[in-house]
Each structure stands twice: as C-alpha cells, then as structure tokens.
C-alpha cells in the first residue's frame, strides 16, 4: 500500500446527516467481483437523474468539486452496511479524506484499511467547514492535525496502529501474519 502522510485539498460539502453506505454506493452495484471502477457509481442515486444524465444540482457534478480530495459531511457518516465498496468508491472518485463529527465504526475501519482518512472533528469545526465549502484544508497524519485556512489547527483522533500502517504503507495483513505462531499457540492451548 502507498503511504498516506498528508492530504492538502479543497473540500466538497454534503451537509446531510446519517449518510449511509447505501447512498455512498447503492446495493445494485455490489454485484461486482473487483474493487476498481466504483467511482462512477459513487452517490449514484443523488448524482444521476432518472434518464441517467448527471444531476446538475448535486455538488459532485459541479465544476467546483473537480479535483477535491476532502469530503465534509454531516453527522454519522458511513452508517449502515459493512460494504467496503463504500470507501473503494470514494477513493476511486478521488477522495482521500472524509470529515464529520461522527463516523460509523465499520466504515471507519474499512476506510483506514484502504488509505481513506476518516477525520472526526468537534461540532464547531464541523459547522465552520459545512458553512465554508471549497476551502483549502491541510490534513497532516504525522501530527494528526487538521489545519483550516484560518490557521486554526485541530488534533483529530486516529487509532495508533492504523496511523502507523498508513504513514509507512504497511499492510495490516503482513503484521497479522507475523503473529501466526501466537495464533497457533492459542489454538493448541484452547481446551474447547
């Protein structure tokens, strides 16, 4: 995996709360057997009209969204299904980080394993970001800091091991396999 150290980008804002993974990538697109190409179907039911054309009112279709790598969303982003297709679709579209006041557990874990940064911020920081779409933000994973164009810097929580893996491009499976002797010992010792 490529290391993830810093993301500097303008933001795109989708202010809705409780954006579930069925919105991020509807179930009818889960018949794929690969990870690639899901960016086309990201937010499909919001992004495309009934005739398949792009909905000009949806933010990801507007010119100001082009090239944005940071998605700012309302509270409780990524709730619902465990589909890893959700972070795959966000990454394939070009996003590298998601910012919300709450990020659902399974989505957060799936994101970290794919190099998409789930950034949880306090209410006032979130409010400011929601009110200022398109601003340039600087996310530094080394210091776990989100810096706004105002100069305000906010530390964000991130699980220590996931951060270590991201910074160094380490695949967690490699680490887990390095513990195989412990796993074998555990299996041998268990009486039930």
């Amino acid at each position, binding site marked *: 995996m490529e290391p993830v150290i810093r993301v500097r980008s303008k933001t795109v804002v989708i*202010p*809705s*709360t*409780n954006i*579930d993974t*069925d*919105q991020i990538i*509807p*179930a*009818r697109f*889960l*018949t*794929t*057997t*690969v*990870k690639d190409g899901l960016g086309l179907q990201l937010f499909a*039911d919001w992004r495309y009209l*009934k005739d398949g054309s792009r909905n000009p009112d949806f933010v990801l279709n507007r010119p100001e969204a082009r090239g944005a790598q940071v998605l700012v969303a*309302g*509270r*409780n982003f990524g*709730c*619902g*299904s*465990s*589909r*890893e297709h959700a972070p795959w679709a966000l990454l394939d579209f070009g996003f590298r980080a998601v910012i919300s006041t*709450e990020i*659902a*557990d*399974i989505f957060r*874990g*799936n994101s970290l*394993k*794919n190099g998409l940064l789930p950034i949880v911020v306090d209410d006032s920081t979130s409010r400011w970001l929601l009110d200022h779409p398109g601003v340039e933000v600087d996310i530094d994973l080394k210091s776990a800091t989100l810096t706004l164009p105002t100069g305000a810097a906010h530390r964000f929580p991130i*699980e*220590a*091991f996931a951060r*270590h893996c991201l910074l160094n491009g380490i695949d*967690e*499976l490699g*680490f*887990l*396999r390095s*513990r*195989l002797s*412990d*796993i074998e010992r*555990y*299996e041998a010792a268990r009486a*039930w």
Partner: protein
Amino acid sequence: MRTLFDKVWTAHEVVAETPDTPAVLYIDLHLIHEVTSPQAFSVLKKLGLPVRRPDRTLATMDHSTPTSTEQVFGNVPIRVDAAAKQVRQLEQNAAAFGVELFGMRDARRGIVHVISPELGATQPGMTVVCGDSHTSTHGAFGALAFGIGTTEVGHVFATQSLLQRKPKTFAVNVEGRLPPGVTAKDLILAVIGKIGVSGGTGHVFEYRGSAIRALSMDERMTVCNMSIEAGARAGMIAPDDTTFAYLKPKPRAPQGAKWDDAVARWRTLATDPGASFDASVDIDAATLEPMITYGTNPGMVLPIGGAIPNTVGDAAFDKALEYMGFHGGEVMLGKPVDVVFIGSCTNGRLVDMQAAAHILKGRKVAPGVRLLIVPGSQETKREAEAAGYADIFKAAGADWRESGCSMCLGMNGDTVAAGQYSISTSNRNFEGRQGVGARTLLVSPFTAAASAVRGRITDPREML
C-alpha cells in the same frame, strides 16, 4: 466481575491490545457469501495463501440470488448477469479453497444469518464474523458477532484472526412484559428510536432484563440483528435454557458428553452480578406499542398510532420527509401501501412466518397490493410449508418464494418501484434501499400482514 462481552473477548485474545497495537482476536466461525468475498479470495490468490481454517468457514449465497423458483430450481438462468457471475465465482472459490458451500440448490441454503443458527453452527461464547453488518444477529446466542469489511474477510481467511480494538459495553435493560401484538421487532425499533442511529457507536450492546429473557431464540435474533441500526457493531444476550433447548437438536451442536461440557461452560458466560457497563438505557416493555418508521433511517420511528413530528429548521429531517412524501403532523394509520415484504435476516424465521399466517388466515390481500413473503432459508420454507403457513399465504394471494435477502436490499431482481410505499419487515429504510426511489416503512410481521389485508397502514392489534 465481568460482563458477557468481557468474558467472550478475553477468551479470544491471542495477543492483548497495547496503546500501540490492537488485540489479535481469534475468530471461531467465519461466514461468507457471494457479495463481499470475491475480492478477499483474490487477495489470497495474489499472495498464494490458502484459507487457513476451512473447517471454521461456511459459505452460502443469499444477497444477489433470485427468489423465483424457476431461477433457483428450474432451467431459467439468473436474470441479472453480474449476479450470476458472482454466484459462479463463489462456487469456484469455495471449490478451490476447500470451503463448505451451501449452493443455489442446496436444501440448507438461505440467508447467512438464518442458516448458521439453524445448523447449530452459531454457539454461545463464540466469536463470529461475516462480511455483512447484520452479523450482530448471532449475538442472540451469547456469541460476540460483528460485521467486517472485505479486507478483514481476507485477514480471517489467511489467519483466522482479526486486529481489533476493544469496544465499550452498553446495557440495554428491558424489563416487564410485551403487550399482545407487540413483538421483538417493535422492541428493537423502540430502542433505536430512543438512543438514535449512532447511539451505540463504539459499543457492544448487551440486551438484559425480563422482557429479553422471555423471548424465543427467533425473537432474540430479531433484536440482536438490528443492533447495527443503532450504530453498535454487536449486540449480545446471555445464553440460558431457551438457548440450550434451541441448540440441542441442531445438527452441528455438540453431541453426547461434549454437549454437557459445553452447556456447563456456556452457563458461566452470563454477566456477573454487579459488573458495570460503560453506558446503559432502560426500556419498560409494558409501555411499548407496534412501531413504524416514517423517514429514511431506522431511528425515525413512531408508535403506529402516532403522528409524524413537526420540526422546524432541520434540513435532514425535511429532506427525509420529502423523499417519503410525508408532512409533519400527519398520522401514519390509514396511509395507503403498494408493496408488503415479509422476510429478511431480521424477520424471515419461522416465528415471523407464524405471525404472518396468524393474521392472514382466512383473509385476502387487498386489491392492488403486492405481498411478497420470502422465508429466510430453505429449511424455514419447508417448516412453514409443513405447518400450513404457506397454504395460508397462497390462499391470501401472497407470493411465496425461495429463500434469500430478496427485497430487503433489491440487488436480486426483487425491487420496489420509484415512489411506491413498501411496508417491510426488513431492517433499513434508507433512500433507495429497496429500489431506486422506493419508500420503505419498517414494521413487524404482524403489522406488515395486517397492512397487506387492509391495503393501508393498520394497527395489527385490531386483527389479532
């Protein structure tokens, strides 16, 4: 003094967590299906790794499989090409990696969270994972069961373990007796309504109290199933005599002396008196009523006789009502319905079929309403047919199908059309969940069946 969760967690710690590293947690049972496994098998192929413990891995197909008999058992091919490819790929992967698969025409096939308990594969004190968020269902047996992503499916394939941070504990205390016509589904919808769709984030629920103890295993599974809809990855219930009586005749339950040993061990799992939880909520079962959702997440829920709240200045709330075609202040009772779906890993078990049959016996589905009843497994289908429920359904005008996830998530050909109202016993009323533009109202099987008969949202207590 330890909780049920603490006991199961500790017993599966291969390596305990440190500030720098998560725990290595051993997984007893890995359930897989066709939708979230292909990319994980691809990783194994790329790295040249085997499935480390095929004996702890069980595969079925449920999400993208059709439910029409001619597509499952006849000569009609699966209509959705990509779904057909996914099914074939699971068949190939299971054969190549030596994983036991309940394939399309297997008598034991069904929704992954219905068949594993039916087989007795899910047992108290286990860790159970699956690439599906409703894996929380298995917590009904006192297992620690949670959904994982496809990368983690690969981790379990390769190591039979996962890297996990220890979650916090949350006691959901439900005392008293559920009134007639109020079901396990209403109970869990009320819990979600009370704590919200992210109220359980970072926590594992333990459902406790006299109302929980009084539930059958099918009902306990309904409750645990929807833990994720409150944000909790897992929900557990301490195993007791109800659990043991359910498991004893199951084909994969321990046999003979091993059974006695297992029960003795399982009895030690319950939370110790005085053990503390990180959070808790108290619910009085006697005050509960049949519940119905009115919005686009399961926390937007009301007692069935209630009116949609009037809120001011909440854009997300307004957007949800606009999608649903509802207005603040409207009462839910009497609103027309187009489609009724009874099934899913939430309410696709025999007790749910029995509830639907109880209402539908001697009655007809209202003209213009489509009632789709989909058993959670082929075994449930056979049982419902033997009990005479299927005949009641057909006589009422319902469509009785082969098992699968079906209309819960509309990726298998069973969908609700744009703008239609679907009264559904499934678990998610998200926008588009049952089809593009579909409007889903989550209810119990009683409420679903009663509403199918009247063609309108109906309080089932009028028809019991």
